[in-house]
């Protein structure tokens, strides 16, 4: 079995709040969390894509995951809220600083292209409004084949009963077309008390009597563990060139030169697999 992950913790400027959020996630048994930066472009003025803060700047020491005696892994994730096709720029250099890339399409056309074309890891399903479009089988299946997953967040359902209704309704429509596969469940929590444990999240999705979100027991557990893992692996593939050359964070630089900026992607390929054909390709 894969470890538990929560790939959506809302970023806030308040450092202590973010710290308590990560600490609570570790206490509840999540081995990996991702801090989510939301980028919502508007037509009127040009906005900057947020820059992720290095994790060691946010917290001094990472908390130990309950029951695993290992520190929690914290990633960065960018969510682009799209209302127009120009809002997502493929191959933008700013996106490369993030470990995970998600889009939140608001129209059916954008949803279709997000599923079939865009090089992203996660497609967010709206939980704060009634679904403005219908999930068609073709794009949903296409996303499944490409390894792109859909995300459902539950913290809105905790906050408000109207949003809870929308969450459940949208989740059920999604489940109808994707049959429980390729779905991850995350919190989108802003405060520590909005987080729930992995088993609580699993329990929200049983199909037992057509309850709530309508996933089967096995699918529900996969939604917080192994599907999340495949998302991370899918995110890794965005950093490879044809699966041969792999760029990685050069965190080791930090020890040699503490003044230099840590955790930046090096532009050259660093880790080349042991294969004789590769050398020709890298040159």
């Amino acid at each position, binding site marked *: 079995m894969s470890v538990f992950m929560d790939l959506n913790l809302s970023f806030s400027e308040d450092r202590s709040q973010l710290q308590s959020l990560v600490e609570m996630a570790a206490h*509840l048994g999540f081995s990996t969390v991702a801090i989510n930066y939301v980028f919502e472009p508007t037509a009127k003025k040009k906005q900057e894509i947020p820059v992720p803060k290095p994790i060691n700047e946010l917290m001094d020491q990472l908390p130990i995951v*309950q*029951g695993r005696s290992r520190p929690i892994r914290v990633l960065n994730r960018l969510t682009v809220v799209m209302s127009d096709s120009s809002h997502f720029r493929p191959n933008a250099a700013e996106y490369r600083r993030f470990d995970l890339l998600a889009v939140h399409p608001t129209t059916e056309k954008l949803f279709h292209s997000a599923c079939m074309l865009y090089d992203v890891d996660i497609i967010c399903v709206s939980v704060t409004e009634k679904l403005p479009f219908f999930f068609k089988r073709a794009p949903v299946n296409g996303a499944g084949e490409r390894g792109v997953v859909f995300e459902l967040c*539950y913290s809105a*359902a*905790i*906050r408000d*009963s109207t949003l*809870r209704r929308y969450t459940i309704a949208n989740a059920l429509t999604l489940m109808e077309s994707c049959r429980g596969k390729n779905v991850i469940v995350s919190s989108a929590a802003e*405060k520590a*008390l*909005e*987080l*729930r*444990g992995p*088993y*609580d*999240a699993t*329990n*929200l999705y*049983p199909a*037992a*009597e057509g*309850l*709530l979100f309508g996933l089967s027991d096995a699918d529900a557990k996969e939604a917080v563990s192994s599907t999340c893992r495949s998302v991370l692996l899918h995110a890794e593939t965005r950093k490879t060139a044809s699966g041969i050359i792999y760029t990685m964070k050069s965190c080791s630089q930090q020890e040699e030169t503490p003044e230099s900026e840590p955790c930046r992607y090096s532009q050259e390929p660093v880790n080349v697999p042991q294969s004789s054909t590769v050398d020709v390709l890298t040159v």
Partner: protein
Amino acid sequence: MRRADKTEESAVYQRVVLKNASPYHYMKVCLVLEDASTRPSAVELKQFIITGLKSLYGEVGAALNFDLLKYDENTLTALLRVCSRGLVKLWSSLTLLGSYQNQICAFRVLQVSPFLLALTGNSRELQLY
């Protein structure tokens, strides 16, 4: 078969086998409140859980049979007994309970078991040397 029965007659223990049909499930839950000075009483806690059930599942859900067996007001830890068919409903309504008297709260489900005895210890809190 019969001979085996005879030899086992003197045994002092009784073996109970439940094949996925235990009538009740037991949950150990802990209520976490934003303001730690608020201490709901046992009656208030049960009422609060029923409100949660009612807001998620309506009148039918509020009619679910569950009991508050034990409640520690200092740690806000409670032991609940619920008939097995209602476990998912009770658990999901506890998960989606988010505010108590206009302050944020969360139910942490510590342990769930079909056997009450299993809740006497928690393997995650063992101190191994």
